[in-house]
């Protein structure tokens, strides 16, 4: 999803604190407290709800986004920490959402409830950015930050390996 406009959101404040950063290639300015978690700024200020809330303490990975190309837990990242930086969410991972990982996820029917999958895909994308042909062990080590209650782990591994082959 491409944001084509300048986004400003207002809170019930007596003073305006505008924080500027880049989301999925678009400049945004948000009126948020400096310690507002990036997760809620993305989801509720900017209405990019593809990034999910799972635990709020960096244990589940559902909130993962890319900050300057590296995965970060948006639930633990205050929005002030990304001022001037580039953030990528699941919506902006690839044009038309046709990243090799997204295509592999669809081809192998990876998601069940699907709630963890945005975070899983963002985490996997970081892996393939660094390591084009990860071994199974490298995949597992990298991906173990992300919980899945439905138990899609074996299919996630296969999808990452498929995407690596096809990319």
């Amino acid at each position, binding site marked *: 999803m491409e944001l084509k406009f300048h986004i400003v959101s207002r809170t019930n404040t007596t003073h305006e604190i505008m924080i500027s950063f880049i989301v999925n290639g678009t400049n945004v300015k948000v009126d948020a407290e400096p310690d507002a978690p990036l997760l809620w700024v993305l*989801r509720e200020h900017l209405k990019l709800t593809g990034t999910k809330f799972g*635990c709020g303490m960096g244990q589940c990975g559902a909130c993962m986004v890319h900050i300057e190309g590296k995965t970060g837990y948006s639930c633990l990242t205050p929005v002030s920490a990304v001022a001037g930086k580039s953030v990528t969410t699941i919506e902006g991972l690839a044009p038309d959402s046709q990243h090799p990982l997204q295509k592999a996820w669809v081809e192998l029917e990876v998601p*069940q*409830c699907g709630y963890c999958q945005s975070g899983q895909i963002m985490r996997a994308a970081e892996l393939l950015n660094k390591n084009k042909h990860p071994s199974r062990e490298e995949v597992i080590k990298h991906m173990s930050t992300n919980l899945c209650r439905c138990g899609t782990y074996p299919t996630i591994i296969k999808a990452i390996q498929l995407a690596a082959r096809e990319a």
Partner: protein
Amino acid sequence: MIDNHDSTDRKRTPGTTRRTFIKQTVGFTFAIGAGGYISVFGAQSQDSAPAGSKAEPLQANIWVTINPDDTIVIKFAGTEMGQGSMTHVPMMLAEHLKADWDKVQVDIVKVNDPAFGNPIFQNMLYTAGSTHVMIYGVKMRVAGTQARKLLKLAVAKHWDVDFSELSTEPGLVIHTASGRRISYGDIVAQVDIPHEIPEVDESDFIPETEFRYIGKQVMRRDVPAKTNGTALYGMDVQVPNMAYASILRAPVEDEKPLQVNDSLAKQVNGVTDIVVLPYGVAVVGSTVEATQKGKRILEVTWSETSVFRGISSATSIAEYSSSARDLNTDAVAWSSLGDAKGTLAQASEIVDALYTTEPAYHAQMEPMSATASVSDDGKSAEIWVGTQTQSLTIIGSAEALETDPANITLHPLTMGGGFGRRSRLRQHYVDDALFVSRELKRPIKVIWSREDDLKSGYFRTAVAQYMRGAFDEDGKLIAVQHRVAAPAILPTMNKHRWAVNKPKDVITMLGSENRTYDIPNHLAEHILQQRCCRVIAFRGVGTGYTKFAMECFIDELAESKKIDPLEFRLELCHNNPRMSTLLKTVAEMADWDTKRDAGIGLGLALSGYHKSLSAGVVELSVEPDSGRINVLKFWAVGDPGYVVAPRNTEAQLMGNIIFGLSSTLMERIQIENGVVQQSNFHDYPIMRMNEVPAIETRVLSTDNASSGVGELGMAMVAPAISNAIASLTGKRIRHQPMTPDIVSAALRG
């Protein structure tokens, strides 16, 4: 409440011609009666159509509408939580209609209309208990076949040919003799449709050999949106003028806020209101983070008078255990065959064992959330929520607002995991949103934190089970008594369903009946206990622990006679060919007869869930000092009858095994003095990718009616593990979970 039609939506229905339209009004619907005839009720008026009017869609029956442009809308009466029914069940109608699935749009039923209900659940719309394919599959076949027959009858009349000369190909009715063909859309646009919905029987059904979708790889409809961030979950809803609410809840059930100091909370930038509720305090504001901050700095004094303050899960389990062992307690028979008590009373030797189970948490990835917009007069509401039940959410919300269910408009959304957690009549996160919205007269989105989800969670109950068994002189197992000491769960979930079913509680007792083994005397009974925490259905419901007890006990019985557990089960399944096949299959997959190296043991267990069966073998080692269990491999085979969706069935079986491993090896909820001790994933860990052992699954599609797969295989994991440890060490761990502390204590003792 019946509302299939928007009053402005003019649909054609059987009984109309091209030039006559029945004006649809709210309350006008069709029901398919036993004979397949239309029952029409509600107000209707007739308009004559102006000449040259456009064709209208054809609602062939309550489930399917065919549009003049060949597109088709099929209704789905359930909700999607990852089990795949939203694709597979409508797909079954498309199959029997011989429709082109690519032209089908699925429409979720949003109203509490018993015509769409599940008879197992008093004709409510309720997606639970792995019942959707089993119950609605039959309806889909009938509805699809009726619609197809209706189209053929219309064409037969239109072309003046015999019905028997017509055939269908996907989306087409064909008269081979004359070479004519007409698409379903053109039939709707051009042809008079007969008045009656036709009766159908076996001879009208498409044979399995012609299936294009059922049993084949058909992509689940919800998958693409779940890979690109566009799938809309309950927590994702955005409603104009919406405010957020975070609720500080009492630490112990049933307690109330007595004193609230919100002076600091009100000063948080973005906090706009504080609403005191009977059970907690809502911090309302224009951002989620403001409400969370405000909630953290509220100062509240709670009533501290709840009876739950004196309750701990450990003490309760000890009490359940005493009750389970005490044969003189009152008990409600859940299932009874022969005379187990009498036979056991006369037996010279009894094998007996007590099994205990701690509470567990669903740990679904999406915490609870609901959005509600209550009208100014407080008597109607619009609700957006991920729910397993359209009906109970509508009825429960009406109860909460003390209004008529007809005044509730529900938007059921997909769920980030259900597993039973979202299946209650009164869903407290919905109540939260309703009460705060009613007070503030604006839409409110309530988001529970993960801590809320645990501390105020509803759990798989604690249980104690006492098993007793006896053999005859020939060494044949002739009696088993299965005593389940546990709270009643159903009355706390849905008092209406309990009123119909009491004193039998299916949620507590499921799986304690014996449909597997040839045991001539069998009694399963429920010894009612006080609950030690909030309780609700959990994935597998009762089978999660009833199969644990039974499958561990079968191994103990086998051991008492020095018989191999596989051989013992095969003998008892001598007139259960489906289960025999599963046992032999999994034994072969696991090389059951091949002795493992020292320190490695195998354990076997099976499970049935309604008509879906499974068997499993685990291979593991255990470190006696730490109590750590290392699962090396798990083999699982499932038979859910005729498999509707092969890839999804494998995925569900795999998911169930991982769920069962995680639950058995890692998970417990502890209550002390009424307070849930766990709070997030750091102290309630669930299995990570690097902790998953090798798992091999196989699905057998058999010539039996299709049944559910959402809970297939879960219940056999724990007993397989306990059986493997016993085979390896000689010590039985009769407890769920088998965390290292439990295991090391058992191995020492």
